[in-house]
């Protein structure tokens, strides 16, 4: 039987995908810190190739790139979290995510992979306000310490709202 202890995550997070006993999180590094998104939203980790920057684009929209014939938008979550830029080069890794109708790629300083925690390890984020807390869905207690889980849907909606004219 799998342990529900916060300190004992399942050894293979891939096994936990789809399991009701555990929540799989995909960990990435932003702003020098570890963040996560729900793993079921991550479809693929890729290398981006050349980025075509768009005119009149907000800072969080880094551009578009061609991934096996599909043109995808590339977002920098660090810009939304703290108005800071993630270093980007051709060949940087990105995670392709699908949140509702939105399919896009996220850039990060590093992609660390999956961790799995029991649902009881997920806590409500701190009170929201401007800054990263605004975009947190949970804080997951892991054996490596608290892990901020991003609310991807909220990030996308906020990005859209900030882009509206006027």
């Amino acid at each position, binding site marked *: 039987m799998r342990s529900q202890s916060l300190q004992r995550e399942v050894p293979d997070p891939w096994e936990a995908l789809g399991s009701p006993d555990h929540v799989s999180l995909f960990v990435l590094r932003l702003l020098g810190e570890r963040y996560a998104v729900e793993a079921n939203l991550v479809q693929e980790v890729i290398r981006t190739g050349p980025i075509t920057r*768009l005119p009149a684009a*907000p800072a969080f929209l880094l551009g578009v790139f061609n991934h096996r014939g599909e043109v995808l938008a590339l*977002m920098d979550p660090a810009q939304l979290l703290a108005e800071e830029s993630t270093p980007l080069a051709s060949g940087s890794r990105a995670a392709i995510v699908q949140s509702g109708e939105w399919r896009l790629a996220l850039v990060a300083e590093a992609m660390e992979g999956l961790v799995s925690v029991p649902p009881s390890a997920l806590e409500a984020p701190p009170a929201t306000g401007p800054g990263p807390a605004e975009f947190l869905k949970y804080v997951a207690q892991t054996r490596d310490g608290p892990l901020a889980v991003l609310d991807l849907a909220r990030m996308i909606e906020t990005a859209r709202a900030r*882009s509206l004219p006027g």
Partner: protein
Amino acid sequence: MTEREILLFSLDGRRHAVDANSVRRIASSREPGAEWIAASVLGRSRVPRRGLVVEVDGQERTLAVDGVEGIERIPAENVCPLPPFARATIRTAGICGIVVRGDELLFLVDLQQLIRESSKESWLYAQDE
């Protein structure tokens, strides 16, 4: 295989594409008295040698460009809409799609929208020589 005709032009150091059917004609910068749009979200024409003439709201308008490379026929599937997240967050309606041309991604420009967005201050009034 369905094909589309695109007109390739250069502006501010980049190559762009426009649906060839949307351009009425290509004007020379030496036409006197013409009112040209020199700057837009695509940048400012460095050397306005040519103008792309389109009809906007019943009037002819001309976007100054640095050069016209010609018309190409490309497979229709090489023209993609902007990715939804880009379309939802970009602050212009002047780019309506992406043209995949080998390794190159070009903006498919909606000239009418681009010109509507350009302010009067960006217009260039050609001087008679």
